[in-house]
């Protein structure tokens, strides 16, 4: 399927994907969908999975031990 800027794609009865603008390296897309269908970037799923994994860190000591080997000297921290 080939589309130009200003054209659309329909998926089923109530989802519309609009090609709004085509730039050199990115395109702007509009998505019309029912509120019940979440529309997110694919990266969001990676972030969700990573957050679930990060929440499992068992001990500060284990983390501290690994970081001590990796980070040289005291890092400035703000605020």
């Amino acid at each position: 399927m080939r589309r130009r800027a200003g054209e659309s794609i329909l998926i089923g009865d109530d989802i519309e994907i609009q090609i709004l603008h085509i730039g050199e390296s990115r395109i702007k897309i509009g998505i019309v969908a029912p509120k019940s269908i979440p529309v997110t970037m694919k990266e969001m799923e990676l972030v969700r999975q990573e957050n679930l994994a990060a929440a499992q860190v068992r001990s500060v000591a284990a983390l501290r031990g690994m970081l001590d080997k990796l980070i040289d000297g005291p890092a400035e921290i703000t605020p």
Partner: protein
Amino acid sequence: MLYPDRMTTIQTTTPQRCETRYFGPVDYDESAILVFPDGIPAFEQETRFLALQQPVNKPLVFLQSLSNPGLCFATLPAQAACPGYQLNMSPEDLDAIGLGGGPQPAIGSEVLCLAILSLEENAPPTVNLLAPIVVNLHTLRGRQAIQADSPYSHREALPLRGAACS
């Protein structure tokens, strides 16, 4: 002589206490609560966190959920993990922390920028520099913001290599 007004004032500034995943009970002040109106991806119900630091564990910052003592993220300031780190937030994410319409916020003076650490057995720790936690320092509103055109992934192994971090 007693001053009932003053007594009331003192009571309202008494620190609250919460249980934490790693540090036992911790006293905190209401004014230190970070608010994530939409929660954090995979933890959408968790909207209030404390940023905890211990001198002995610098530069680590721990994001402790106030409603769930078992939930605490270990994080590194993004610029501690990667000294040249710059934000490239979407207009929607800027809006969500009250900085809509402005330029990219300055890390340190306008926003706190923390990268969540993850630890798997037999592997170096990784940091999520694709989607740092960004907190408006004036309002303490925060959001995990997926960066546009990010040169970093959600799982950057420490220590980081590459020109952007040297």
